């Protein structure tokens, strides 16, 4: 068994003439917290889309848990334990926060048509379990007061929290967060960062795209820098911070 949870080889995606992703070899280890950074349009979200199968690559291979998922469907890789969030939050607007979470955690069997018609006592018990778990997560993320609100009524930051909570309902092995801190106020962002760190400590492998450099440097064990679709640097936060290419392409030379 290798220590690699996710690996991509020779992964390329172009839009028209534009090379959005062009990665020769990149892998992510179990239990590591990795951040992917890079300028706007660097291909970070496209990379997420390819790995989670929401987009089809031009060429290349993707392995998750040593399984080739190159041609897999999004829901199938999700069932393997790869859960991603979206940069533009995708919550179920006209469902309550609680329903958002319970739907996420619900098993295929529990969701089935016939199970739903007969509605046995064991399925009621299962639903109760989901509800308890959902409340635990809501408390943890400080949104339990909103449990009965429609998700569309949440603020942008709260939606980010809901989406994170919804992912956690699935007990992910690999959690891919696309800008989890965007639009979250500084105080909450700090809490959220703490929370992400805790999840990592609990053994969830985390891959995070984030523009908040301070946050990234603080919690990441490893940083990957993308620019124009290519990996221009990777390594510990310190290494990356001092890398000239990175400073030039992304961090800027100014003494910010």
């Amino acid at each position, binding site marked *: 068994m290798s220590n690699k949870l996710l690996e991509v080889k020779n992964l390329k995606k172009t839009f028209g003439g534009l090379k959005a992703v062009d990665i020769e070899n990149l892998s992510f280890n179990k239990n590591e917290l990795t951040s992917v950074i890079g300028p706007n349009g660097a291909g970070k979200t496209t990379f997420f889309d390819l790995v*989670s199968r*929401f987009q089809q690559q031009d060429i290349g291979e993707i392995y998750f848990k040593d399984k080739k998922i190159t041609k897999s*469907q*999004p*829901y199938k890789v*999700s*069932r393997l334990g790869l*859960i*991603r*969030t*979206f940069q533009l939050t*995708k*919550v*179920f*607007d*006209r*469902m309550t926060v609680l*329903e*958002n979470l*319970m*739907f*996420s955690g*619900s098993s*295929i069997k*529990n*969701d*089935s*048509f016939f*199970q*739903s*018609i007969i*509605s046995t006592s064991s*399925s009621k018990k299962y*639903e109760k379990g989901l509800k308890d778990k959902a409340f635990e997560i809501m408390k943890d993320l400080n949104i339990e007061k909103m449990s009965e609100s*429609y998700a*569309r009524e949440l603020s942008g930051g709260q939606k980010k929290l809901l989406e994170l909570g*919804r*992912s956690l309902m*699935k007990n992910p092995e690999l959690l891919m967060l696309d800008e989890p801190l965007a639009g979250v106020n500084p105080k909450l962002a700090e809490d959220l960062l703490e929370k992400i760190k805790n999840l990592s400590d609990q053994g969830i492998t985390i891959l995070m795209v984030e523009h908040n450099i301070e946050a990234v440097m603080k919690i990441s064990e490893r940083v990957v820098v993308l620019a124009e679709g290519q990996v221009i640097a990777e390594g510990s936060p310190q290494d990356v911070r001092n890398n000239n290419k990175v400073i030039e392409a992304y961090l800027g030379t100014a003494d910010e």
Partner: protein
Amino acid sequence: MKISSKWITTILLTFLSIALVFVLNPDGQLRILANLLTFAGIYALAAIGLNVHFGLTGLLNFGHASFMGVGAYVTLLLIPHAAGREGEINENGLPFLAALAIGIVAAALFGLLLGLPAMRLRGDYLAIVTIAAAEIFRLLIRDLESITGGVYGIINFSDALQKYRPVFFDEAVARLDLAPAQIWVGLLSWLTVFIVLLLLKRLSASPWGRALRAVREDEDAVRALGKNAVWLKLQSFMLGAGIAGIAGVFLAFNYGSVQTTIFVPLLTFYVWAIMILGGVGSLTGPIFGSIIFWAIISETDKIASLIFENADGQQLAGVRFMLVGLLIMMLMIFRPSGLLGKKEELLLNVK
């Protein structure tokens, strides 16, 4: 239970529309009422099926008439009937309920057939596929004359259902000077409406219903959470199609004969109007939407006579369209979420 203002308005409007029938008709009021309520029950059932598609799951289905048609034709061809120009008699057949069950399954499978290619694509493709398929279905039925009776249709099938009419029922209806055959169809339609609603109430509150609403809200998020959105949509599509199939069967029995001209796009349009009137996503909305719709439709000629001296068929059809249009316009102005729709669910989020 707190009775909200939308319920008061709805019930009031329903009574008003029925009162309109009594005011505009000096005689035969009961007969007209029975006729319109029978149609209302059948169309309510069809609209409930459409609401599973659109209200619950966000699927754009513009070929509802074809699901009704598949249910009707398959069922009628399986019971004793006569078909075609010569009225070729087919005395052997299944009992009504067995044929109905097969008709429902056939309508559901027709839904599956249309859905399989379309569900993988964006929402508007389903709309296009269903419009086209409904017309193809109708033309096929017309041209396969040796099986379906073509333009001559199917007749003499009513007995399969009417023979179950109890004697006391006939006596009671006769005392009211009404036609027992139609009341029987109406009664069974409304009974079916309530059974289907009970089933859907359970389903839409269940994990399955929750999954469909999630699909309606955001398919990508559903996929990202490990759920097979395509399969969920197909299930919803089959369920709604099956319900439409039952409505088609009752519609045929109400007419007493069936021709392809029944299952035209106008039928789909009427069912949409009823669903929107009742409130998209509201379980009971189609009941009231349908009664009000049919009360107004059935008074078309009376209303037309206020405009034209001696309205001919074409003018009547025109006035009917105007009335439906007016109804929907008023609705969009005064109550965009329909009579019983939830304001929070107004946003027409289409898959």
